[in-house]
């Protein structure tokens, strides 16, 4: 490669880096067609047991209380709308919440799996975030792994008598970060590095997406805490109706 070619490559890389950060930073939905077929199938298969558990848990809830149907549907729509909104950001780029941490804290991790996959389907077909073939991988990272971590951390913090808002903040932020790590690993498994294998590749993906994802996780934590605070102030009876009351107090 000549000197001129080298400088062109450098310029192109800088351009790619600068340009890549400016467009809307979505919560790292893996785009349509980005994963090879066998990974699409494998991640889809991994989701099945979690989705089945969520399905039966929702079915049980509905048997006890049929009114939960509209509440569940509203909750799903709520997660969709929240994740489609532009959130305040410091840098001026436009980014979006995932809403998974909030969902996990409000509805529990098993119901969120089912709501999550439906929301992801709508995000793919209405907004083109994510895709049909990558649905399995995205469901695993955003509707299963993230919410489970959020819920676990929330429970743990509450058990350790940590302040409620701090617990919500930590749960949402770490759930978001975990989603980002899982997505990076999913991409790394599909595209291992030539020299370092999957590990090196995962580090590359983590590094490239870090500038958009780290601030996003913190903002998501703050916003989720504010939302929960508002809900507790104004909507305690409603929260009780969706089962949040068990954790209140």
């Amino acid at each position, binding site marked *: 490669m000549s000197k001129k070619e*080298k400088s062109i490559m450098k310029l192109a*890389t800088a351009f*790619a*880096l600068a340009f*890549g*950060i*400016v*467009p809307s930073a*979505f919560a*790292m*939905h893996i*785009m*349509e*067609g*980005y994963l090879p*077929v066998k990974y699409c199938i494998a991640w889809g298969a991994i989701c099945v047991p979690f989705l089945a558990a969520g399905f039966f848990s929702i079915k049980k809830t*509905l048997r006890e209380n049929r*009114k939960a149907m*509209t*509440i569940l*549907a509203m909750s*799903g729509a*709520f997660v*969709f*709308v*929240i994740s*489609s*909104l532009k959130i*305040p*950001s410091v840098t001026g780029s436009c980014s979006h919440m995932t809403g998974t941490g909030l969902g996990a804290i409000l509805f529990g991790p098993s119901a969120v799996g*089912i*709501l999550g996959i*439906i*929301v992801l389907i*709508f995000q793919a*077909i*209405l907004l*083109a*975030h994510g*895709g*049909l*073939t990558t649905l399995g991988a995205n469901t695993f990272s955003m509707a299963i792994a993230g919410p489970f971590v959020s819920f676990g951390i929330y429970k743990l913090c509450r058990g350790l008598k940590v302040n409620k808002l701090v617990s919500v903040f930590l749960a949402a932020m770490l759930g978001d970060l975990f989603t980002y790590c899982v997505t990076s690993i999913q991409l790394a498994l599909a595209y291992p590095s*030539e020299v*370092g294998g999957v590990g*090196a*590749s995962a*580090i*590359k993906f983590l590094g*490239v997406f870090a500038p*958009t994802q780290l601030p996003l996780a913190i*903002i998501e934590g703050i*916003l*989720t*805490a*504010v*939302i929960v605070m*508002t*809900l507790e102030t*104004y909507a305690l009876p*409603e929260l009780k109706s969706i089962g949040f009351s068990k954790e209140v107090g």
Partner: protein
Amino acid sequence: METIDHYAYASRMRGINPQLKAAVAMGTLILCIGADRFWVSVTVLLTMSAVILWGGGLTFLKYINLLKIPLGFLILGTVAIVIEISSRPFGYVLFHGFGHYVWVSKEGGVTALKLVLKAIGALSAMYMLVLSTPASEIIGVLKDLRVPKLIIELMHMIYRFIFVMTDTQRLMKQAAVSRLGYQDFKTSCRTFGSSAGNLFVVSLKRAGTYYDAMTARCYDGELLFLSEEKGVRPWQVMAALSYFLILILIYILVP
């Protein structure tokens, strides 16, 4: 909120049977990703775009804007795949420092180009489906695939509620902006959080009202939706099959 759904309702291909469109889109997606060949991806991209633009009647500018949606992910992801970091370089070195080299391998560029084209090709195949088929019809296709009734009902309801809530949210945002609610970062966070919380409260109240309305109309745990019957013409099936055949032939014949 301007969604892809709006374009789907306006599409000239709306009259075509949704099952057929879904089958063509999924078949093309699988062929495009499974084959992973340069020319297959190019063919898929060109043909699907042609179908969307001429068959569906979408304007070129709108289509380009839609293709740009996953651009951020595509660029970042591909940069991560192409660039290698190690203590010894094996290809073209871009930067070096701290005892490590950032380099691009000779095959890296080709791999990246193939991957980008494959992803955009697949994206165009998905767009062919979603830009010509409203979401309610796609849910109908899922129903035919024997997805559990509970999920289908939830999807139908979520789909409706999304628009109700988006509208409520728009009004709330307007009110907040006119009262300087998004003046700076700190205020924005507070306004965003409390309006999202309020949105949830409002929507839960609405959920109660909708349930009452449904019960008043004899809802007993089963929702039924009327779906339009759209027939399949023999030539459409023939066209779809020959399209798949052409893709397979390109896969076999062109290296």
